[in-house]
């Protein structure tokens, strides 16, 4: 498989598959997309698209992170984890947590309650597009799917064998 890192619209449009990764902050990332008119482009992609971490969050309607309007692909809003007064719930969530209620070909041959690696302070709620859940303080969407768009809150590229399996499933779509 050949991968290219790009923000060139024609390269993105002609790709077989698009991975929309994210390390960053929501408003900065959305501004970057808007300046290059990539927000419209991403919404209108027809090939399989996988958003990772911030990528998933930007594909939702809105993020509490610096009050940011997002792409509106998934029917979810992104909220901040509530750091408990006694600091029992650390924010951001950093580390290995389980994914469950797996219901999508993206998770083909992935066992319920497999461990994946998460690093995030904001999360998407659960609803009609949810394809996997994770618990941290409360239950939230660790995976979303709508039409040709997929999103995972964890980092498959950092989730050892489980993550590689999920990426392989996506590549085979």
């Amino acid at each position: 498989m050949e991968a290219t890192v790009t923000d060139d619209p024609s390269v993105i449009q002609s790709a077989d598959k698009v991975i929309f990764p994210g390390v960053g902050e929501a408003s900065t990332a959305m501004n970057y997309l808007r300046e290059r008119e990539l927000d419209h482009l991403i919404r209108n992609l027809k090939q399989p698209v996988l958003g990772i971490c911030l990528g998933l969050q930007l594909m939702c309607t809105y993020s509490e992170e610096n009050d940011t309007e997002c792409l509106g692909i998934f029917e979810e809003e992104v909220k901040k984890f509530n750091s408990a007064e006694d600091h029992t719930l650390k924010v951001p969530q950093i580390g290995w947590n389980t994914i469950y209620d797996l219901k999508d070909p993206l998770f083909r041959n992935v066992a319920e309650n497999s461990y994946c690696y998460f690093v995030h302070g904001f999360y998407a709620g659960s609803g009609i597009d949810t394809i996997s859940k994770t618990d941290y303080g409360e239950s939230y969407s660790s995976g979303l799917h709508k039409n040709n768009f997929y999103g995972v809150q964890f980092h498959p590229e950092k989730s050892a064998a489980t993550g590689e399996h999920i990426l392989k499933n996506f590549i085979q779509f």
Partner: protein
Amino acid sequence: MLTKRIIPCLDIQNGRTVKGTNFLNLRDAGDPVELGSRYAQEGADELVFLDITATNEKRKTLSSLARRIAHHINIPFTVGGGISSIKDVQVLLENGADKISVNTAAFKNPPLIAGLAREFGSQCIVLAIDAKKAGDGKYYVHLNGGRVATETVCMDWAKKGVDLGAGEILLTSMDQDGTKKGFALELTRMLALGLPVPVIASGGGGNMQHFADVFREGCADAALAASIFHFREIPIPDLKEFLKGLGISIRI
């Protein structure tokens, strides 16, 4: 359920892994990428690479090392050592680092933390603090790899760092580091219970019980160690089985 993390730390000097005692007497401990891959296979939850090289070539070496690590290792890693600007961090993240740690430069220029958090998000900003207990019973921040003492109390700086946007604290006890006599439980507990972000305890891990202690009594979210892993004194799979056996949440 979120698990407690076991994090091998690799101190890098001129591209090699080194290990000393109390920040001194460095010994060679192998190729960082090779060692890191071994740890990933053995079940390490994360890796930390701290560059202690003090040359001008350093920035280039560190980014190429990050690139090599990212290509060979499928678990997260943090890179630190002499990071002092947004540009430094951008280069490292672009080369595949998941998180970066800042220490002395952030202490001398606290707005750096806010700038980094704004640009890259708090989740990838680790504030590393080297602390040492003084005669008055308080823990003070030390800089430049522990060589320079400050008059700032560890907890005060940690709180300020978190307010500015640090997403995690890497807390090294200089008193315990290299002694293998156990982690600094009192200090770790103080920060872990007093801060809203995860705390990685570092310094002093010498046997498996020490790790259990720092998770239970120290309330650490993660424990970091170096030489006991490098020289195979504690195999990671054995350590994780031991902790899980005690009922501690651990990824096997």
